[in-house]
């Protein structure tokens, strides 16, 4: 299968979300669902202050039109995985913005045939303009 796409889409930010203010309660709710009782992730009085567990970074929602910008190759596309780089902690009160772009598109041939991977990178920044995380969404397409 030939992978044809306009190379100009690589790296271009297609979406910037409105900031979402993180409440301590949102973090605690997340912790409860996975059984995280670590005081640093739950208690505002914890040493050094409460921080969200790192994987809280993947709970921020992309915009409504996110999937319109994920190029499709073939019929079926699904979520194959994620790669997350945690740059700085997220704390209660932070206002988080997501900016998303197509990071790369590549083809792979496995036992079950050809697959095309589309990687979308969402970069999370806080209210001070500091990057807190990069979340790479890996989508797999089968012809």
């Amino acid at each position, binding site marked *: 299968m030939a992978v044809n796409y306009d190379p100009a889409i690589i790296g271009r930010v297609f979406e910037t979300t409105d900031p979402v203010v993180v409440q301590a309660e949102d973090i605690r709710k997340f912790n*409860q*669902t*996975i*059984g995280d009782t*670590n005081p640093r992730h739950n208690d505002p009085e914890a040493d050094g202050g409460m921080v969200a567990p790192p*994987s809280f970074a993947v709970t921020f929602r992309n915009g409504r039109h996110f999937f319109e910008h994920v190029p499709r190759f073939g019929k079926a596309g699904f*979520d194959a995985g994620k*790669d997350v780089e*945690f740059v700085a902690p997220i704390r209660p009160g932070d206002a988080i913005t997501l900016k998303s772009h197509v990071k790369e598109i590549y083809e792979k041939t496995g036992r079950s045939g050809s697959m095309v991977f589309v990687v979308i990178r969402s970069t999370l920044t806080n209210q001070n303009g500091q990057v807190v995380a990069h979340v790479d969404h890996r989508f797999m397409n089968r012809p």
Partner: protein
Amino acid sequence: MRYEDVNIGDALGPSEMYLSKDQVRTYAKAMGMLAPRFTDDELARKEGLPGMITPGNMSLAILGKLVTDWIGESGARMTRLGVTYRQPVLPDHTIALNGFVTHKNDADRSVEMDIWIESDEAERLVIGTATVQFPA
């Protein structure tokens, strides 16, 4: 635990976790993941799945917790987590969380590990790697 105390081959877990349908529904609803395949067996089967499945982000969070529990009070920080969803994680089953240290990088005092979620039939449903950075 200090960087110096960590050895290649050190295990994370294994720890077992019974994942109930209610727990998965609670996660999906709390995170605004309203697709029926995360909340309803019947509707999930209509999509060709064996029943309702665990959201990928929840599997990622469960593996993230395996790593942060291992870090404990050491002052280290998880700086990277990558996961691949190989097969659906079905609730109403007991999963096992596993991992071990694969590399140590003395130059920046970081540690690499393999981590995975195993089914009660010993299949690796979600596999991943993580990096943990220890303080200087």
